[in-house]
Structures are given as structure tokens and as C-alpha cells.
């Protein structure tokens, strides 16, 4: 498969702070590539360097084999962008905004189709300033689709959306991939990364700490299942000694036991005197992977 995006040793500093500390990766044609990490990890900086909005301090970036910077003008018509801040003309309507942006490109998707896709039908005559946050986010998403680009850069595309709208956005992203588009998205929702992405780069403090498919990431780090419950007081030592348990994590009242033998662990837990609530078993997630790699949660 062809490389659509190639990033080599990208470094970006803001004064004293190094936002991106020398990362390299490729995005291949037709895949959904995700960058997962907590706020401030360097996701937005990375994607904005690729879009040509920020100038890297070090490293090379190319899109479609064209170097970003000198060839940005040739790249721009071929990429669709959703920035994290959805800033638009406040006194234009939804339709006018889409028509305006459509006029910037040599070819574009029909505006009606876009309105339909993102679920803004019936709101097309509303001014941008009258839209709710979620509707604005969807309009911003529609703008990324306006030029029917070969690759979409979506920076936190579902931030602030309600669950219904989020699932709708996921459906559109999946449909885009079916059309043969390449998608680069950043997110700090592990569920989003797990559900959508073919490959995920986990990024923390400007470094890529893992890069693989979600399946491979989870399997590579956890053979275990997770037994989760809430308890008032727990004796970590006693939990650690339970059959099958390899690792115990206490996070406030929430306790997670990683176990190679879930039935045995559950059976043993029943004999505990403490009141355990909300007991359930789940497989490990990217969240667990992130926790294991960094010792922190994605959303703190």
C-alpha cells in the first residue's frame, strides 16, 4: 500500500516546552490511523504540522510524496481538515458556510449531500452562532468532507458530541473508509480509537510509546481479562494473592484485577466480606494499555 503521509523525526517546540519530541510514522492509503493520547500529549501539534499550519523545528513531513511547506499549495486541495476549534463565520448560515468553503476547491461534494450526511437537515438556514456546540462540531466535520479529499485529518472529531451524534460521526468515518479515503484522526477516547482505527499510535509527552492495531496492542500487553468492581476498603495484598491475578490497580473506589483465570478469581472474590458493587468482567482495552505504559489514565 502507498504511503499517504510520512513523518520523520518530527520535533516541535514552543519556547521551553517540547510538544513533539522526534516522532516518526507513516499513514497508508485506505486506513484509519489514530493518534491516541491525553490532552497535551502533542496530537494536535503533530496533525497541524502535517496540515502545514505549524512549521516543525526539525524533521521532514510529506503528504502524497510532496514535502509539506514548499509544496503545501499542491497538497491543500487534496486534504480535508477538521480543526479542533470549530471557528467559523458567525453570521453565515450552515448552507452558506458550506457553499463558501466549497467555492475554494476545484471540485466538491454537493452541499445538500453534506448537510444530510452530518445530520444538519432542517438546520441549514440557521446561523452558525445559533447552533449548539454539537451542531457546530458537525458542521466543522462537514467542512472536512466538502472537497471530497483523498485524506481526512480529523482532530478530536467527536469532542463534545452526545453519544448519538458520536455514533453517527463514527458511521460517516467508516463510510469514508469504504469509499477508499484515508483517515488520520486524533482522539483521547479509547473507545473511539478501538472501534474505528486500523492502527493506533499511542502518544504521551510528545513521544509515540506504542504503534500497532488495537487488537495487537491489547494482546501484546494483556493476556489477562479485567475483573472490575467498586469497594469501600480493599486489602491490595489479599487481592494480589487471589488465584489467577497478575496485577491489581486501585483507582479511587474502582478496583481492577487483571487475571489469567477469570472464573477462579470471581469464585474467590465471593468469599470476601466487603461489599463489592458493580462487579463485572471485561477484556482489556487500550485504556488499560495506556495505564500500563504510562501509569496514568487517558482522561485525568
Amino acid at each position, binding site marked *: 500500500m502507498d504511503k499517504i503521509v510520512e513523518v520523520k523525526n518530527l520535533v516541535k517546540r514552543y519556547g521551553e516546552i517540547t510538544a513533539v519530541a522526534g516522532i516518526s510514522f507513516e499513514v497508508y492509503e485506505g486506513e484509519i490511523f489514530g493518534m491516541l493520547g491525553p490532552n497535551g500529549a502533542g496530537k494536535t501539534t503533530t496533525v497541524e504540522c502535517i*496540515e502545514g499550519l505549524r512549521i516543525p523545528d526539525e524533521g521532514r513531513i510529506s503528504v502524497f510524496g510532496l514535502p509539506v511547506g514548499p509544496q503545501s*499549495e499542491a497538497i491543500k486541495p487534496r486534504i480535508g481538515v477538521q480543526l479542533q476549534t470549530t471557528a*467559523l463565520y*458567525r453570521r453565515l448560515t450552515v448552507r452558506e458556510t458550506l457553499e*463558501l468553503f466549497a467555492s475554494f476547491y476545484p471540485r466538491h461534494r454537493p452541499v445538500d449531500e453534506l448537510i444530510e450526511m452530518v445530520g444538519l437537515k432542517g438546520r441549514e438556514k440557521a446561523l452558525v452562532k445559533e447552533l449548539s456546540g454539537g451542531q457546530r462540531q458537525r458542521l466543522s466535520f462537514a467542512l472536512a468532507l466538502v472537497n471530497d479529499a483523498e485524506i481526512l485529518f480529523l482532530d478530536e472529531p467527536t469532542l463534545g458530541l452526545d453519544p448519538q451524534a458520536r455514533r453517527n460521526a463514527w458511521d460517516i468515518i467508516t463510510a469514508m473508509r469504504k469509499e477508499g479515503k484515508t483517515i488520520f484522526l486524533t482522539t483521547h477516547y479509547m473507545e473511539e480509537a478501538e472501534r474505528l482505527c486500523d492502527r493506533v499510535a499511542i502518544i504521551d509527552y510528545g513521544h509515540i510509546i506504542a504503534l500497532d492495531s488495537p487488537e495487537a496492542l491489547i494482546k501484546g500487553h494483556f493476556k489477562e481479562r479485567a475483573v472490575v468492581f467498586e469497594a469501600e476498603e480493599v486489602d491490595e495484598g489479599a487481592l494480589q494473592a487471589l488465584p489467577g491475578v497478575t496485577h491489581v490497580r486501585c483507582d479511587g473506589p474502582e478496583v481492577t484485577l487483571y487475571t489469567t483465570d477469570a472464573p477462579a478469581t470471581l469464585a474467590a472474590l465471593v468469599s470476601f466480606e466487603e461489599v463489592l458493587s458493580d462487579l463485572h468482567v471485561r477484556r482489556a482495552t487500550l485504556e488499560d494499555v495506556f495505564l500500563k505504559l504510562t501509569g496514568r489514565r487517558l482522561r485525568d
Partner: protein
Amino acid sequence: MRAFWKLFVSNVKEFVRDKMALFWMLAFPVFIILLFGAVFGREEDTSFDIGLVVEDSGPAATGVAKAFEQVPVFNVHRGELSEELEALKKGDRRAVVVLPEGLSDAIASKEPLDIPVYYDPASQTASQIVLSIIRRVLEEVDRRISGAPRILRLSEQTILGRRMRYIDYLLPGVIAMALMQLGVFGTAHPIISLRERQVLRRLGVTPLPRSTFLAADVLLRLLIALIQVALLLAIGMLLFKVQVIGSWSLFAGFIALGAATFIALGFVVASVSPTEEAGVAISQLLNLPMMFLSGIFFPMEMIPEWMMPVVKAMPLTYLGDALRQVMVGASALHPLHLDAAVLGGWLIICIAISVRFFRWE
């Protein structure tokens, strides 16, 4: 080209839907003209009240009195000396002329005689005008008595055919002021706001050339300038009967130059303002001195000498001066070519600063 027009139409919609901008750009200058026009726009009564005390009863005195009464700008009141002097003290008379006892005899015998004239030196200008007219009347009477032929005659030819009223003075200035405010507020703020809210960044990832964005913005400002000028001119001409006597092409030229200069100044404000709040402060810092110190509302002579360097530096001084000359034939502070040169200089400086410091994010 399609992007340019779409952007231009979008700009128009943004502007028209912004009630605040609409008020400041279009209603405010109109409001100023209507307000000042209503207060100062009526025909001013420029006749002078003169007291005439005739103490001589001869026929010659009647003739002299008649000569005074025939002066068109004199509103002659006859009365006793004491009551006329009282009226003078109250400010009801500009001067009191006494035709003393023995005037007719003196004329008959061609003997010199003093004609006392009382006036209040406190009201200087008017008194001097009045005194010189009185002097003229007496000289004329003198000439007739002596029968000396008039050799050199003054041939008066007015170019205005009318007097300059305050509204005539004001209208060109308010037009200039409207262009200034279109620049420092109307141009700077939408751009700062688009930048602050990162709309310019969003445009930056599309293939839209920046030059297209700027051209569409400038075209909108020029259109607003045109509407402002047309509106103010129409009100001035129809409502307050201001007559535009100058050349329309010169007028159009100065409007274009002034609009361009102040739009460029607006871009300078946008370039140097880090935030919207700073933009408002900088705009006011430019707006207030220009509004009050560049001779828009009152003549330059009233501004203290030490402020003159500021006054001389401000572009609005020159646009106001040029428009007053071109539109209503007001006397020049500076020759027109100097006005044009200073405005052109400002335009070039503003463009240079904007090109150097304008930021897209």
C-alpha cells in the same frame, strides 16, 4: 474568481447581519449630521443691529440717516442716546452712531465735524466689520458732498454667491470622519475577530489564496465607504441644502484616496493588536484625537498651539481639509496637492506596516 465572489458575498452578509457594525458604520455618521444639522443648519441671521441717534433736524441729517438705513446688513434702530447706549450695553446693538446737532450746518458750510460712534470692544470681529461699514458710509456721504469724482471703484464679484454656514463646514468633515471610522473600527475589528476565533487558520488549510481573502475584504470596505458617502451627501444636499460647488472628479478622487488610506490604517490596527480588547483600545486611541483635533467639528484656530504637531500628523486633518475645499469651496489649510501627498504618504506607510506585521494567527 468564484471563491472571490463567494467570499465577498459572505462578507456582505456578515456585515449586514451585524447590527452593531451597521449602526456604527452607517447610522452613526448620519446621526451626527442630523443632530448638528438640526442645531446649526438653519440660515444664520447676519444683519447687525445699529443704534442711530439723530440729534440734528436739518435735511442733510435725514439724508445721512437714510444712507445708514440703506445698508443691507444694517438693522437700524432710531432712538435717544441714553436708551441706545443701554441697548448697546445689553448687547442688543453692535454700535451706536450719533448724528450730532449742527450736522446739516456743518455740511452746508463744509466744516469738519466729528461723528461719534459707540461700540463694545469686547465683541471684536463684529465690531470691526460694523465700524468699517460705518466708515464706508461716511466716506460715501463725504464724497457726495465734496462732489469728487470716483476714480477707482471696487468691483465686487463673489465666487460663492452665498455665505458659508456651519453645516457647509461640517458635512465634508463628517464624510471624512465616517471614512476614518470605517478604517480604524470597521476594518480592523472584523479581521481581529476572525483571527482571534481562528477562522483565518481554518481558511489557511484550504487552497484559498490569502490575496483573495484580502481583496474580498477590501472590496467590501470600499463598498461600505461608497454607501456612507452617498448617504451623507444625500442628507446634506437634500435636507440641509448644502451645495457642492467643486469638481466631482476631484471629490471622487479624494474619497477613494481617503478610504484606501483609512482601510490600510485599519489593517495596521489589526496587525499590531494582539487581542480584540487591545484592538478596541488602539482604535479608540486613534479615533478620539482624530475626531476632535482634525478640524472636523470646529475650525483649527480653536486648537491650542502646542497640539499642532499632533494635528499636523493626523491624516484626517488633510482629508477633511481637502473635502471642504473640493465640496464647498472652504478656504484652504493646505493646498490640495499637499493634502493628497500626505494622505498618499500615510497610505504607503500603512501598507508597508501591514505587509510586514500582519498575522494570520
